[in-house]
């Protein structure tokens, strides 16, 4: 069975400090991977998606970047955090096909920027 793991579970960071969040998928080969951001009480905003190693597409610019160094790993990062980066970051995966591919979410990382 596939499992999705995100790290860290929660993070408290200062404005201007760097950030790195991670996501790994086990049990699925070559999945599509996604990063989402959710403000407290808000909707889900897709940030990035990747269909293969080394390839990442940006959906929304929020002064964040993403990378996919391995088939099963997706990284979200920034060199300088803003207060507006606070929220719930979710990694998701789907099968790599162009059908009606459901997306499955990881447990998320809760980020507080002070």
């Amino acid at each position: 069975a596939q499992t999705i793991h995100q790290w860290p579970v929660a993070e408290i960071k200062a404005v201007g400090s760097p950030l790195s969040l991670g996501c790994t998928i086990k049990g699925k080969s070559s999945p599509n991977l996604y990063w989402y951001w959710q403000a407290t009480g808000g909707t889900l905003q897709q940030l990035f998606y990747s269909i293969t190693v080394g390839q990442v597409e940006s959906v929304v610019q929020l002064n964040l970047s993403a990378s996919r160094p391995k088939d099963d790993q997706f990284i979200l990062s920034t060199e300088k955090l803003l207060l507006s980066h606070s929220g719930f970051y979710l990694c998701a995966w789907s099968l790599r096909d162009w059908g009606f591919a459901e997306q499955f979410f990881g447990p998320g990382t809760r980020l507080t920027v002070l």
Partner: protein
Amino acid sequence: QQQVRQSPQSLTVWEGETTILNCSYEDSTFDYFPWYRQFPGKSPALLIAISLVSNKKEDGRFTIFFNKREKKLSLHITDSQPGDSATYFCAARQQGTGSKLSFGKGAKLTVSP
């Protein structure tokens, strides 16, 4: 602009009643519409989904009704239970974009015993 609209934003129903959550969209290129449920502090989980080829999709107490002409969907939850209390998101996928989803703002449901 908000590509997927949901109404109401919040509602309270009594246990045993039928809950109706509405969703609408403008973009004619949307072809797949999943609904996700999110409990407080948890990540969203896929609940049920429908595509353009169907007018109705049923899974237990959950049913999606789809009016393609009016670009409207509704999620019906029959015999609502306190455990159904959560936020429900309607989403839409644009044709030819793999799995890029646009989400509505969500509807917070409270089921009172």
